[in-house]
């Protein structure tokens, strides 16, 4: 099992001489880091000061345009905008919905991708590979079109309702519900996860699977103790990227979800545009940012943990 962060040994993925810190490594990683720091980090910092009520300098004009702006009351700023957001019943509802949809969708995506990948690996055959390859088809379809596609499939005059109406069943209109957001999120996140997870599962050597089966392990046991742990890295990467993508998503919840509660991506846009409350909008953006950082930390931590468990640290 390869981990990004294990530190030792010949098998280890890191510097040739154990724990010595590499200057070359540091230097090589600077270009993208500096690019991000400059072009994304600085705007984020400016936005952070604005959320705390620093209304001068680069934030001057937006403070004039926006409504319900709270200028700073102490040297470090003010928490008034943060208080606004946390006391807004919409935000709490949106946060709960966002976290719930993200969790459910990510789990579903991983499970479906695993199911397809495992089916192809363990059973094989034409159906399996056809299914696996066809599920990448939506990859290049932009999210706006995907949202339309799902809307017309499950909507009031869509395929599902048409089909069932012809056999006398009143299929519910799924659009404008949180279920539709989950369906849309799963659908758009599937191709990437299938690429990653399928590659990881394919990599498990036949020898290991066969020897496990020879020892009498059931298929389920083989999957849970041999295949999944060995394909861990791509699975976790797929999960992390999927989760963060869904958490900040905008188009899918806008097209498919209810007006309230909605996902944070849509609410941030509402607050910034329609309600003209840029400060509160930025506060919500920082909440999403924090959650994303949390997911990244989780990934790193799980890597370190598994590296420790396998004795590599």
């Amino acid at each position, binding site marked *: 099992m390869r981990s990004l962060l294990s530190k030792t040994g010949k098998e280890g993925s890191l510097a040739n001489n154990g724990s010595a810190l590499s200057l070359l490594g540091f230097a090589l990683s600077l270009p993208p880091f500096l690019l991000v720091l400059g072009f994304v980090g600085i705007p984020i910092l400016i936005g952070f000061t604005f959320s705390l009520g620093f209304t001068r300098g680069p934030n001057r004009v937006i403070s004039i345009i926006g409504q319900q702006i709270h200028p700073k009351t102490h040297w470090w700023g003010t928490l008034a905008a943060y208080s606004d957001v946390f006391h807004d019943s919409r935000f709490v509802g949106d946060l709960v919905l966002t976290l719930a949809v993200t969790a459910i969708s990510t789990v579903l995506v991983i499970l479906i991708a695993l199911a397809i990948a495992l089916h192809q690996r363990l059973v094989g055959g034409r159906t399996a590979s056809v299914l696996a390859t066809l599920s990448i088809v939506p990859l290049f379809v932009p999210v706006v079109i995907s949202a339309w596609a799902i809307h017309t499939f499950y909507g009031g005059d869509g395929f599902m309702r*048409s*089909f069932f109406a012809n056999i006398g069943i009143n299929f519910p209109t799924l659009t404008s519900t949180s279920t539709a957001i989950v369906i849309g999120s799963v659908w758009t996140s599937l191709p990437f996860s299938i*690429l990653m997870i399928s590659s990881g599962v394919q990599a498990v050597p036949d020898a290991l699977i066969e020897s496990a089966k020879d020892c009498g392990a059931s298929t389920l046991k083989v999957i849970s103790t041999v295949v999944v742990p060995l394909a861990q890295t791509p699975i976790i990467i797929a999960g992390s990227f999927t989760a963060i993508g869904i958490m900040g998503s905008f188009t899918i919840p806008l097209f498919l979800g209810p007006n309230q509660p909605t996902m944070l991506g849509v609410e941030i846009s509402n607050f910034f545009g329609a309600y003209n409350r840029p400060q509160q909008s930025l506060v919500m953006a920082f909440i999403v940012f924090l959650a994303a950082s949390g997911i990244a930390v989780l990934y790193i931590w799980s890597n370190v943990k598994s590296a420790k468990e396998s004795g590599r640290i």
Partner: protein
Amino acid sequence: MRRYFNPAKVALNLSVFLLALFILGPILWLGVHAFVTDWKYPHLYPSGLTLNWWSKVFLDSALKTAIRNSLIISPIVVVLSMVICLPAAYAAGRKNYWGRKTFMITLFSANSFPKIGLFAAIATLYYTLNLMGTFLGVVIIQLLGTIIYMTWIPAAAFASVPRYLEEAARDAGANKFTVFRTITLRMAMPGILVAIVMSFLASFDEAQGSYLVGAPTIYTMPTEMYSLVQNYPIQVAAVFSILLAIPSVLLLGLARKHIMGGQLAEGFQIK
């Protein structure tokens, strides 16, 4: 009994069918609309057939320019991204250095910050650097969205290359660069290919930032496409869904051979 009716097989086939319906249903249902005049609920057949919508899309000159822009800009963005990020990915996957974890976490979270709140600050930055409305400005803003894919995924791929193979090659007399080229790079290549595909998509589909920096001088494909899709009935969206699914189908050939089987299997191989 078993010969005629195997419940496991039935259940399996049923789930395959349901999964196929879930994944392909919406896109197929939308796709057929590209050829219809009208489709009234609850009929399962259209009112008429036409190729009108295709001409509406193909005759839109703004769209042609926008697609041309995107097809020029996105490959440049991907190449630049590879040059800037792959060395960093190699370092992140293989070396230990100060700030490595912070580096990975920062890239992930910076990428996920909802952009709408940053527009004013980004615009100020780009105006100050005189990048507003320039080709380079659009390249940079699209490049930023690809960094996460071009670092995390190749890093994992580089980290997975088994050291014993490299050592064996060195023992056999190969120098460092040959080892890198024939073993490390080759085994990490499928992961890098996934990163290239996702980066290309990230750049090609990037709409918000490209509009902020590029409009009205440079328009990229998503802006024009979304405008067309919202201007006209669903049939135009259907035309786009077919047109844009073609690259996926082309990619499948590549993916089947190199990514989902074959070499990638070796890349993520465990000893």
